[in-house]
């Protein structure tokens, strides 16, 4: 693995630290043969500081979603340490983990399936507060409205059912919900795919604004290089469960080293040149 100019400056506070993360899945087959073991992530190491965005890029099956889920506490790694704001979360489960969950939240790819469609918008956003038993009804509602405003949803939408919102609006709700516990880290797993161009633009702008205001650390999983270039400070390429190259965006784009990364960038370049030839400009 090559790393270029990627060390976080010591002045920045380290929010997420992943060391030696390894996770394997088993495929149980019926019959005489033994289980098939597929190593989804192997010895993954990276760090993210406050206000920074690291993008995890790779093909499907490269392990990026597995890493995201482990960091978000949705799966337990087989080996390795994950620490968020100094607290080790890799080994924890259940109640211990719940207390620490305020520090990191995840935004999923399909907002429609990540929230209860029968909940009202206010209920969706207040759910983390309910689970962590923070405040009472009125304070929770006030906080919901505050959060909705912050993500650009009018308070008049508060009592609409989640199912009635558009995809982009639902993703805003998901972001508002994620902000409820004042996390330090947001894991965005393909959170922008499937959105319209204009909606996507609005959400990207929202994410940039929020990061500037609150110094969130973002772990951004995507296979869209153009989006990554706009949102991320550094990029880590994954292939076959390992990080094969990591560095800042400009340096990687100019001088990719690993063959897989080169192939990825080359295929992106052909599409780019077609677009540029037609007069598209960034």
């Amino acid at each position, binding site marked *: 693995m090559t790393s270029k100019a990627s060390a976080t400056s010591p002045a920045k506070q380290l929010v997420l630290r992943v060391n030696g993360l390894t996770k394997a899945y088993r495929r149980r087959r019926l019959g005489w043969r033994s289980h098939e073991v597929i190593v989804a992530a192997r010895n993954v190491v990276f760090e993210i500081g406050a206000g920074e*965005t690291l993008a995890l890029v790779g*093909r*499907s*099956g490269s392990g990026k979603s597995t890493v995201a889920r482990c960091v978000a506490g949705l799966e337990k790694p087989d080996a390795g340490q994950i620490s968020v704001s100094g607290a080790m979360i890799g080994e924890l489960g259940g109640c211990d983990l719940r207390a620490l969950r305020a520090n990191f939240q995840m935004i999923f790819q399909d907002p429609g399936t990540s929230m209860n469609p029968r909940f009202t918008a206010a209920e969706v956003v207040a759910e983390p507060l309910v689970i962590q038993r923070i405040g009472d009804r009125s304070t929770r509602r006030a906080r919901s409205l505050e959060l909705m405003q912050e993500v650009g949803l009018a308070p008049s939408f508060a009592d609409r059912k989640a199912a009635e919102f*558009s*995809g982009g609006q639902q993703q805003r709700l998901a972001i508002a919900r994620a902000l409820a516990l004042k996390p330090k880290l947001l894991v965005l797993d393909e959170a922008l*795919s*499937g959105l*319209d*161009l*204009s909606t*996507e*633009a*609005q959400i*990207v*702008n929202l994410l*940039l604004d929020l990061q500037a205001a609150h110094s969130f650390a973002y772990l951004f999983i995507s*296979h*869209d*290089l*153009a*989006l990554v*270039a*706009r*949102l*991320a*400070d550094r990029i880590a390429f994954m292939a076959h469960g390992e990080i094969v190259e990591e560095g800042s*965006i*400009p340096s990687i*784009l100019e001088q990719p080293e690993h063959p897989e990364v080169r*192939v*990825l960038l080359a*295929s*992106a370049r*052909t*599409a*780019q040149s*077609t*677009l*540029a030839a*037609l*007069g*598209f*400009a*960034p």
Partner: protein
Amino acid sequence: MDPACESVVVVSNLSVTYQPEGGQPVHALDYATLAVQPGERVGIFGESGSGKSTLASAIMRLLPANAHYGSGSVQFQERNMLALSETELRRIRGAKIALIPQDPAQALNPVITIGDQISEVLRAHCRMTPDERRTRIEELLAEVGFDHPERIYGTYPHELSGGQRQRVVIAQAVACRPSLILADEPTSKLDASLQGEVLSLMRRLSEHHGIAFVLISHDPTVLAVFADRIAVMYAGRIVEEGSKEDTFRRPLHPYTQALISLSGRYLISGSRGTRLSAIEGEPPNLTTVERGCAFAPRCPDRMQTCSESYPRQTTRQTAHRVSCFKYDE
């Protein structure tokens, strides 16, 4: 392409309305007009709510039960699609017109082998012995890029990767050598790296067999690589239409211009933190019938007449058509 040939499909002033239960009617298509020549590759550029998927379904008469055809017609190879019976339609679907759906993971039957699934298409439309079918299927699988067709024949969809599944779907679509293929966002669920491969495969098949394509996408990269002609849709209408060069380089309609400036986002540039430009306003409300242009509320160049009536279609040089009052003489 023989200029004397008739069009493969002509959609004229087609209107389609959905009637959801207990809700307002949604006007998905509103006097949409489109003509596709044999072997031509047309790209439909639009966002969600533009009616692009409805257009594809409408051409194949595959709309859900609560959809209602209003005015207009769909002519496929001189036959009026709206007048055909279900039996006649079944003979056309899959054989003369095929659909490549969006999500390859969902488009294949999970409990039937790949070989059998392609075989189903052949059985439905071609008279062949089982051996002939088998040979043909292996030919098709090789044509779409599988190195070992015999091995793929007996596998199930969940054993294949996303890119492989999309190839199988394409193999199904071309199995009976259709004249027209409708592809609805065929690469949006695939990795960016696979996009190029799938698009060049489809282009190769189109050129080789003279298959006309209508490819629907919101991603200009896809259209730039694949299509020859672009039609831009907004709120159920085609607002601009022209060659790829004309439409992308010299967009006429304000919506097209806005989309193209938004599409700069698809270019990789190292400008971290720059905000993306967005079109102001909300997507069009399809439950109301506008008298004027649906884009008017969001249009930077709107005039008084824009909300009063719908602009006629004007044609500039080289078959570049646009419906906008700015160009109405």
